[in-house]
């Protein structure tokens, strides 16, 4: 079990981080963050000095009789407590306003548009112009702003790829807009950031940034319906798949499987992860996931389907052929 989880890290090029920016928006936000951290550190140190120096100097000093020494209320309250903080805050607010446009880059051309739809607990991904439908994985062309239309089919989710941009909520009944732009090729982890129920922890997605040519190849391949089984083993697997309960929830385009409850599986084998970023996509994990989804992701809507050993192997063979 632990082994199957451990392979997950290898899927991504780098660990998620708001401060390890791989796109212009996150870079902007990281600069804003570092600026404020610097200001915050100075403020903290100055206040601590004001607090601790007098305590240290006069701790347990002898008693002083007579009235307390007068203090300049103007200096402490008006300047220290009001004017200086107000100036600092005004500065922070101006920097804040300056970073607003990181949310909406101005594309010089028609942007790539993606629809991302939150479900408990996976992400549906559509490329409306390109007839691409996939799940838990977004591909982007490097250097081009991508417009993400966010919706939810059930509860509130929040879409977050920390290395690329801040988060935007996916709210039922609302279509929100988020922008992503990668300035280099790579694979990063995105995640749901709004608590959405039992498997909120396992609702991640992979973001793959590619150069234009690779991106075009990917969309071409995703657009295609599944190829007919190439060998008898796969054919047997397809039959087993179509006869099992899998088809009530899943679609494999080009076959009779047209369920729409769960993710589209037409190109499952080409994806990097399984179960919404829970597991690396490999044969062992796929088998374990089908045998007992609830053990790997307790509460998942995917039921354990009763399958014989040979049926299971055949279905996994088939799914692994869905490149």
């Amino acid at each position, binding site marked *: 079990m632990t082994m199957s989880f451990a392979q997950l890290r290898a899927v991504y090029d780098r660990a998620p981080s708001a401060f390890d920016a791989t796109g212009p928006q996150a870079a902007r936000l990281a600069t804003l963050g570092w600026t404020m951290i610097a200001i*915050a550190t100075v403020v903290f140190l100055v206040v601590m000095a004001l607090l601790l120096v007098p305590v240290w100097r006069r701790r347990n000093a002898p008693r002083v009789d007579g009235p*307390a*020494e007068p203090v300049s209320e103007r200096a*402490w309250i008006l300047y220290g407590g009001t004017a200086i903080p107000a100036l600092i805050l005004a500065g922070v607010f101006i920097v*804040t306003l300056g970073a607003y446009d990181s949310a909406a880059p101005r594309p010089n051309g028609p942007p790539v548009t993606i629809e991302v739809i939150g479900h408990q607990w996976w992400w549906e991904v559509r490329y409306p112009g390109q007839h691409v439908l996939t799940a838990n994985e977004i591909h982007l062309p490097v250097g081009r702003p991508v417009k993400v239309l966010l919706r939810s089919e059930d509860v509130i989710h929040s879409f977050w790829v920390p290395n690329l941009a*801040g988060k935007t*909520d996916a709210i039922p009944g609302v279509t929100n807009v988020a922008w992503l732009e990668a300035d280099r090729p790579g694979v990063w982890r995105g*995640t749901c950031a*709004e608590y959405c129920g039992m498997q909120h922890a396992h609702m991640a997605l992979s973001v793959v940034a590619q150069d234009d040519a690779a991106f075009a190849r990917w969309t071409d391949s995703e657009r295609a319906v599944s190829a007919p089984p190439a060998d008898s083993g796969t054919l047997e697997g397809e039959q087993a798949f179509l006869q099992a309960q899998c088809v009530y929830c899943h679609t494999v385009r080009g076959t009779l499987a047209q369920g729409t409850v769960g993710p589209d599986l037409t190109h499952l084998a080409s994806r990097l992860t399984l179960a919404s970023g829970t597991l690396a996509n490999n044969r062992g994990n796929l088998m374990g996931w089908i045998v007992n989804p609830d053990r790997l992701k307790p509460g998942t809507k995917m039921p354990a389907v009763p399958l014989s050993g040979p049926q299971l192997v055949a279905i996994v063979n088939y799914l692994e052929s869905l490149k």
Partner: protein
Amino acid sequence: MAGPVERVDLAALATRLEESWHTPKTLYGRLTTVDHKTIGMRYLATAFVFLLLGGLQAGAMRAQLARPESHLLSPEAYDQLFSMHGTTMIFWYASPVLSGFSNYLVPLMLGARDMAFPRLNAFSYWTFLLSGLFIYSSALGGVMPHGGWFAYVPYTNAQYSPQLNMDFYALALLFLTISSTAGAINFIVTIFKTRCPGMSVSRMPLFMWSTLTTSVSMVFAMPALTAALIFLELDRRFGTHFYDPVRGGTPLLWQHLFWVFGHPWVYIVILPATGMASMIIPTFCRRPIVGHVYVALATVSTGIFGFGVWAHHMFATGMPALSTAFFSAASMGVSIPSGIQIFAWLATIWAARRHVLATPMLFMLGFICLFVIGGVSGVMTASVPFDWQATDTYFVVAHLHYVLIGINLFPVLAGFYFWLPKMTGRMLSERLGKWNFWVLFIGVNLTFFPMHVVGLRGMPRRVYTYPAGMGWDWLNLVESVGAVVTVVGIALFVVNVLWSLKRGVPARANPWGAATLEWATSSPPPEYNFTVIPTVSGREPLWEAHDALLGPADQEDVQATDPARAVGHATLHGAPRHEGAVVRLQEWRVLDEGKETLESTLLDADPQAVLRMPGDSLWPLVLSLALTGLFAALLFKSPLWTALAGVATLGSIAGWLWPTAATFPPRRAA
């Protein structure tokens, strides 16, 4: 009732007052008492038990999160634990513990003999206790609330949460709002109308300002929560569509209503604690606070500003940039009054006559440190674009715990070290207290500081587990180790209190050499608080009277808690020295013809009338129990029981208010 000093026989007076005010220590007496001191201590003890419960839940969560992909807790168990942790800490600990201090201290600081409405006060406590038991009874069925303390719809609507979990949440909170509202009204009237002669508004202790601001905020914030919860129950139970986007509702309505209540509530759970700081810091700096008026103004304006910042919890919901910019500016602006308060304390410490680093003061230094960290991280999250990265991550978990632990728990512990000797008559151990402070301070920072980092490294909140190798593993381990240290820190406090109750050195009337009226009476105070109603002529009545009226033993700054050193002082305990310290000899108001306290004018506190105070009564408890029945009947959707409990509730109110000959005593001029 008024007369020169020499005509008053203090011993006889005390006996007469004792007869009027005494509650027998029987079971019936304990159930019917309306003494604000008893009720205050019950609030404190009950809220502290809720703190321990919330802490246990947090401990379980930190055990689960110590390692990646851990299977200690199921996701459902984790969700219930984090929901109950937040709900418990915010609603049943952070606010009630401050109500406990206010309950105990407000009448004493005002020189009054009880709260304005003593029975309502008892009712507030019983309702607080029973609503807490109500929500915790959900544990018996394994259906504790699981939607987070913020309970966002649609996840909490019946479609996604069909069991009783969220009904427990909604009904228990509705139940609790009755207690909070009643308590808030009581504080407002008490502070406005029962101040002793001479305590004009400008001389009110700062703790009164913070309690007053908090209470007014509560009265205005609660209706939003009540409405949100009623809509939720209607959606869940009766198929209305307030939050249903498919039929014209919107889930964002819940968020707006909840945070319109929720953000003022943040100030409600910190302002009284800052008021406590403004009482404690000057005591140990041996000088009046710098900028008294500005601190009072800052307190009030924080309460007002607090109503204009709610949407900063919603920066990622897709609100228009103009709205978010407004709320961003307001959220940064609200830190200016906090800056004023902090600089008033810094100035007081800077210009101290001397520093007495007793345990309460140590907690105050820690409080300012944590306050500043929580404050600057708060300004960072108020910066909208940065908040897009920070919100819903562990960065916010770090921020809010620095705020709530820093500005609530640390002052509360300082308050316990400071005022518990007044309440129990026994000092806490200074040595254990210092250990308590340092262990807790280290534990809290070890637990929560790494959360800033892990949040910006992409770890979302409210996850029951996380994958290995994302750069979160060792930071989470450090946090869990910190949680263990924090638990030890809290345990040291509990040990100290238990030790003090058994072995603590008897406390003098004014063991810290503090300035306000609660220190003018014995420790613990008699049931009637003051033998005579004091008259004050300044903000620090005991310091003004210091030289003339306190004996040589009291000249020592701080009472020692080391038993060997304290022998000499112990004999002073209980001496009726309080009246001498405060009375300016012009007028003595003894108010000894029954349970009486003084009513005074709003601004100048000129004596206006004598208030006849109600005696002990079982009705507050009966009404609370009837309400418990009503909410339980609503929970189980039983029309019959709902009707019966409704009748019982109305009957209890009628019984409580039933006019008797004693209800309308003749009004007397003061």
